[in-house]
Structures are given as C-alpha cells and as structure tokens.
C-alpha cells in the first residue's frame, strides 16, 4: 500500500471534518425539528377535536340557528383557522431546518445570494448548540442574542457562512463547558451572539465567558490541527475552515477580538458589496 501524499491526506482530513460536523448537525437538527413537529401534531389533534365539536354544535335540519349557537360556531371556526395557520408555520419552519442540513451535507459551496443574516446567524448558533447538547447532555449554556433589527438581507453563501458561525459557536460552547466542569458552582456558562449592520459591513460577533484561549495557542489559532480539545472531540480545523469561508468566499475577515480570563470574542466582518462591485471592475 502506498503512503498517501500530503494532498490526499489533506482531502481526507477535510472530509473527516465534514463528517464530524455533519454528525453534530444531524443531532442538532433532530432536536430542532422535534419542536415544530410537536406543534404540528398537537394543533392537528386539537383541530380534529374542534371539528367534532363543530359537528356537534350544528343545529339539526329544520332547527333554528340561535345567536348563541352562531357565536359558538364562530369561536370554533376561528380556532380552527388559527390552528391551521400555526400548522403551516411550523411545517415551513421544519422544512427550513431540514434544508439547512441538506445544504451542509451536500458539501457543495452554496451560491452567493441575499440572505437574512440575522436568521442565518441565529439558526447556525441553534444548530451548533443543540448538536452539542445531543452529544454531550451535561452541557447547559445560556445563549444570548442581540440582533440588529436593521440588518436585513446581506449577500452571502448561506451554507458556508452557516458552517463558519457553527464552528465558532461549537468552540464557544466547548470553552464554557470546560470551565463549568473545572469550576462548577456559581459559574453560569454564557455565549452571546451579536449582529450589527454598519455602512459598509455586516458584523457577526460571538462571545463566550469561558476561560479564554491559552497564551500558547493564541498565535497559531488559525493553523490547522491546533486544538486543545481531547481526541475525538474536534478536528482542529474549525477555525481554519471558518476563516477560509469568511475570507475567500466573502472577502471578509474573521478575527480574534479579545481573549482572557473573562472569556473570548470572535468577529466576522463581511463587506456588504461584492468584491467586484467594490473595485468597480
């Protein structure tokens, strides 16, 4: 058997990273999808009971429809209508979640298009968190969100950017979880997502109140395979891939804003105009 060359190794490792990420995603999606599915089942069941009530409340042929009965029927119909609306809403939600998973699973770079950046960031964080929770049940992190209401649509490659935010969230949750295992007691793990729309950039910040990145790792943070996670828990490629997605696919920057005993903050900054537009080419 010949030894695989560096390029082949690199390909295999990236494929492995994708599979690891996919495993986490699947668990996360399973959890996320359960919520809307429960609502769909519950509201469908209630609506079925309401339909029975409706049938029961209808006056017999020949009998008069009293104002009371009319009011009752009106109430039941209103609830039925609302429930059906909720069922549609939660079905669409479940569909989006599964779509996000298929996008990530396909591994194909997603095409650049306008995306609701707040929604993307929120969903990426949720996917990461629930995926981790499903594989590490003791993990209990509070997720704070401060999303800029003026963010609107931003040109981005959705599944790739989701991947980047997901990787950052992964790291943030692991950091706080590690601190909790070490300190216990009153320490409350917190991860914060913040988005901001600036005149020429869209920002996504991810903060955690973990123990900070050890001095020794800070310089080589964005190098492949630098990880302080135990074997099997991380591939050491999360930040590398995130930075590559942000820089190469979006012409943006991914920077470590600060890190210390109070926690860590990463910043993704994406230009609002496509590179070609900006240079006027």
């Amino acid at each position: 058997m010949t030894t695989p060359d560096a390029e082949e190794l690199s390909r295999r490792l990236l494929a492995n990273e994708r599979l690891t990420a996919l495993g986490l995603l699947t668990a996360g999606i399973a959890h996320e999808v359960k919520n809307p599915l429960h609502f769909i089942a519950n509201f469908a069941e209630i609506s079925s009971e309401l339909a029975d009530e409706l049938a029961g409340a209808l006056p017999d042929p020949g009998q008069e429809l009293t104002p009371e009965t009319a009011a009752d029927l009106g109430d039941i119909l209103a609830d039925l209508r609302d429930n059906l609306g909720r069922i549609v809403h939660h079905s669409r939600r479940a569909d989006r979640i599964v779509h996000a998973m298929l996008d990530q699973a396909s591994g194909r770079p997603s095409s650049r298009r306008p995306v609701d950046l707040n929604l993307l960031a929120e969903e990426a964080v949720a996917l990461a968190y629930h995926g981790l929770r499903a594989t590490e049940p003791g993990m209990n992190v509070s997720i704070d969100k401060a999303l800029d209401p003026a963010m609107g649509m931003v040109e981005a490659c959705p599944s790739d950017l989701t991947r980047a935010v997901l990787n950052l969230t992964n790291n943030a949750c692991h950091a706080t979880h590690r601190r909790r295992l070490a300190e216990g007691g009153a320490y409350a793990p917190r991860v914060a997502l913040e988005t901001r729309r600036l005149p020429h950039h869209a920002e996504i910040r991810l903060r955690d109140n973990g123990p900070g990145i050890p001095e020794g790792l800070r310089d080589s943070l964005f190098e492949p395979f630098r990880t302080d996670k135990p074997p099997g828990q991380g591939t050491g490629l999360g930040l590398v891939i995130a930075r590559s997605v942000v820089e190469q696919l979006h012409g943006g920057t991914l920077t470590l804003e600060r890190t210390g005993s109070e926690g860590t903050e990463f910043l993704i900054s994406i230009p609002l105009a496509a590179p070609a537009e900006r240079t006027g080419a």
Partner: protein
Amino acid sequence: MKILVVDDERDVEALFRQKFRREIRAGRLEFVFAFSGEEAIEVLGGSGAEIVLILSDINMPGMSGLELLSQLRERRLGHRIYMVTAYGDQSTRETALQLGADDFLTKPLDFEELRGRLEKL
C-alpha cells in the same frame, strides 16, 4: 388554580388554552404566560401571590429556565416549580432538582398526564 407557564415558543399559549379549554371555562384552571425568564419575574412581581404553580422550559434564550429557577429560590418565593425540557438527561434532571425544582417534566408534554397531576394538587 392559577398557573404560570414560561416558554419562549409563543404557540405554547394557544396550545395550553385549547388543551385545557374545559377547565379554563369552568374556572378550575387559569393560565398566565411569560415568554422569557425576565418576563416571568415581572409577572410574579405583579400577580405573584395568586400563582400556585410555575411550569418552565429550561432551554430559553437569555435567562435560561435553570437561572430563573435559582433566582426564584433565592427570593424564597415558595411557588411549586416544575421544569420542562426536551432533554430528559440525568445530569439536567439532577441540576434542576438540586437548584430546587419540585419536579421535572419532559417534552413533548403529555397533557393527559399533566391534567392528572394538576387535579391532584
């Protein structure tokens, strides 16, 4: 009996109101809803005395259900508190009970079972 339900999903309100329609109409149960830990604390400050039971989701953005639980226990408000969560793992259960929860329910809520419990209170 007045019950406070805390969950970030707004449709939980429609769900409870419809599932407990009969009891609500008969005046046996009354539900109040808060969509965050912070809101729950406000509500308890207002009509707090009348509320007999709190049902709270654990996984909420912002103040988590467990944080809400600690805060309520710190203030010695004495309400009966049941934590509700999709994650029925041992560690979460223990943490909740340690922090002072009276019981721990898993999602999806079995409304028939809940109805039974409420009747016994």
